[in-house]
């Protein structure tokens, strides 16, 4: 309860968040939430605690411990109460370490119960908009091009690894095993997959300004590490093209702090040139 309420408060306090009224219905909106989160244990195959959540009438029948819904009163409804417990609580649902319901899913169930849970008629649902970052896709789905991309990566002696198992989190271009094998040509050849690459780890590679000029088309690139390469201020005109770029590491390159002032849109930038040390940290 504490966790979710603080989460929702945080969401609502941020300026990007507002409440939006929509209409919802049991069959269109509640059933998909239950199917996604609940019916693997409370459905056709298994009926833990004698409970099924796969149809309206079965929900009203409740579990072997009694009813789980008190029409019009979410707080006194067992279903709603358990969804809101601390995930470490023994009674928390979904049980067994499965992920908790999303705040808007819990809110949906709450408002359905408050609306005296109609089966067929619609009810008003005020959907708390989640911060955009949660839904944001870093890159297009990597799966359709994955096979070809991995074949090319092997040929080029670099690695393309996923940022995560979420296919829209993008790929990381990784060169640490053998940075000297990565040259400007490597980056040129990665063009077919440039949209998928969100991080490029290119420190200590052979790349030059020419290589960075190929990177200008990597429109989803968020993190670029070109530390300890021979890149110069000439690369700046390419770097400013990278609209998604958030972090840039140019430590130990020939770039100068004054030239990098043009890249003021970044969250973080590191510049570390010998012998002078300068750290620029700009916030959006």
């Amino acid at each position, binding site marked *: 309860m504490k966790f979710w309420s603080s989460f929702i408060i945080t969401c609502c306090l941020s300026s990007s968040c507002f409440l939006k009224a929509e209409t919802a219905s049991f069959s269109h909106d509640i059933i998909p939430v239950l199917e996604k989160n609940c019916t693997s244990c409370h459905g056709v195959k298994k009926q833990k605690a004698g409970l099924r959540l796969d149809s309206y009438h079965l929900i009203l029948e409740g579990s072997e411990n009694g009813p789980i819904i008190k029409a019009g009163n979410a707080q006194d409804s067992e279903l709603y109460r358990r969804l809101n417990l601390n995930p*470490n609580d023994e009674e928390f649902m979904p049980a067994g*370490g499965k992920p908790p319901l999303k705040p808007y899913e819990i809110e949906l169930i709450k408002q359905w119960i408050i609306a005296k849970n109609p089966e067929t008629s619609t009810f008003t649902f005020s959907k708390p908009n989640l911060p955009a970052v949660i839904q944001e896709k870093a890159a297009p789905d990597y799966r359709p091009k994955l096979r070809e991309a991995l074949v090319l990566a092997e040929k080029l002696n670099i690695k393309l690894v996923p940022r*995560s198992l979420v296919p829209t*989190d993008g790929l990381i271009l990784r060169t*640490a*095993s053998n940075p000297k094998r990565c040259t400007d040509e490597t980056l040129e050849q990665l063009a077919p997959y440039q949209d998928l690459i969100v991080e490029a780890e290119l420190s200590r590679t052979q790349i030059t300004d020419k290589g960075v000029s190929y990177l200008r088309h990597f429109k989803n690139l968020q993190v670029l590490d070109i530390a300890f390469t021979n890149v110069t201020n000439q690369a700046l005109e390419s770097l400013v093209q990278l609209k998604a770029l958030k*972090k840039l590491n140019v430590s130990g390159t020939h770039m100068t702090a004054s030239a990098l002032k043009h890249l003021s849109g970044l969250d973080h930038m590191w510049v*570390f040139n010998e012998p002078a040390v300068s750290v620029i940290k700009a916030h959006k």
Partner: protein
Amino acid sequence: MSHSPLDPNIALCSDHGGEHPNIADLPELPLSLQKQYLELETRRHFLARGSKALAWAGLASIIGRTAPELFADPEAVFPKAPHFAPKAKRAIYLFMAGAPSQFETFDYKPNLVNQFNQDLPESVRGGQVLTGMTSGQARFPVVPSFAKFSRQGKSGMWMSEMFPELSKVTDDLCIIKSLYTEAINHEPAILTMTTGNMFPGKPSVGSWLAYGLGAINDELPTFVVMTSKMPARQNVQALSNRLWSSGFLSPEYSAVQLRSGAEPVLYLKDPKGVTSDLRRTVINGVNDLNRQLYEKIGDPEINTRISQYEMAFRMQTSVPELTDMSDEPASTWDLYGPEAREPGTFAYNCLMARRLAERGVRFTQVFLRSWDMHSNLPNNMRTMCGNSDRATYALMTDLKRRGLLDDTLVIWGGEFGRTVYSQGTLKTDNYGRDHHPRCFSMWMAGAGVKPGFSFGETDDFSYNIVKDPVHVRDLHATILKLFGFDHTKLTYKFQGLEQRLTGVLPARVINEILV
């Protein structure tokens, strides 16, 4: 009793956990392909390297999943990948073995000054069982910290005068004052911190990360451990490789110990009179024999052995490059100080940890021992803090200015706390403190951790936690979260359980300390 999903008439043994029949049960497949499948399947090994992708793709069509189907399933293609986008790519864990006192370091208790030599109220102790080292004491006299505290940085956190250098980066630290553990003695407590369990045999944190994430740099080990020379020797605990062992995970996920001295990794050098070519020939021969053995009996440990021979061979090149610090600029030595030039010192190890992080080593654990101060605490504290303060600050600063702190998690701490009451004779300028598992302080910094932030509170005697307790399991769950893992899903099947770092008891990700 469950049934095979392929054929409902086939009952599966319950003690096999109801696995599907494996490929070896399908006699129509060519034996060579079955073997290849098992090799690839074992320990999520397949596709760890690109060449295997092709082998697997070919195989996929035979076992009923077409290549496109297979590549639609990221978990099948990438056996080593985080569940969600991580904040941390690597970690450096500065392990202060022996348990530094929280009173003189991070848990400021100003009211204790007025209670010098007064008896600890029984209500605070609450009947807690003490160690044999102090349970016989007639009195439990309260002793305040000899070290002074002051507010530092924009965050204004209270920092001890024991850490004048580290205080300069106060605003980068996230201090947790409410850790607790069940273990009251060093070995089980250190094991709990490093492996999540006080019984030996479990994989350590670094091994879990190596298992879950794989290497960034194939030329170096994924998990490295270093022990440091001690400036003082008091109640020094033994460190053994069970603290950095991979337990039931494949041995390739154990840490490689980087030593000071002429041979950073033991047995890596070619013996006198043996050329590199000859060595290569010998390794090829041994690998051939191992492969033959594998074909006969199919034990996956044999493949591990082959890969470890290869790793050792690659390290013959990568380790000398790593340990040759002649490429470090003068500013490095200005930062870390002259001690960093002496291999094996804590300062040298901190610098090495930065070099490892830079080269993509996932987890580096540096041990510094001799924090176990049952007596003569003020003097020993001055020595230990004096020895480690500058190096710790230097590492933080170095990571920061090279742009590494942003995705490197730094962890500092021991295995438990110490008592508010003095052990042994209490003098105005001298005292000791016994073990205390009920609360202790640590700090983390970098990758995804809230900077300039203090979390958790203890009572006026730093005896009991009064707000936001953090169990070691919670800390581990939080570390895994920073690396992109749901701690309940990073598992390995062993002894009938889906084993995990956080074990079977409840563990909570401390979201409050995350950015």
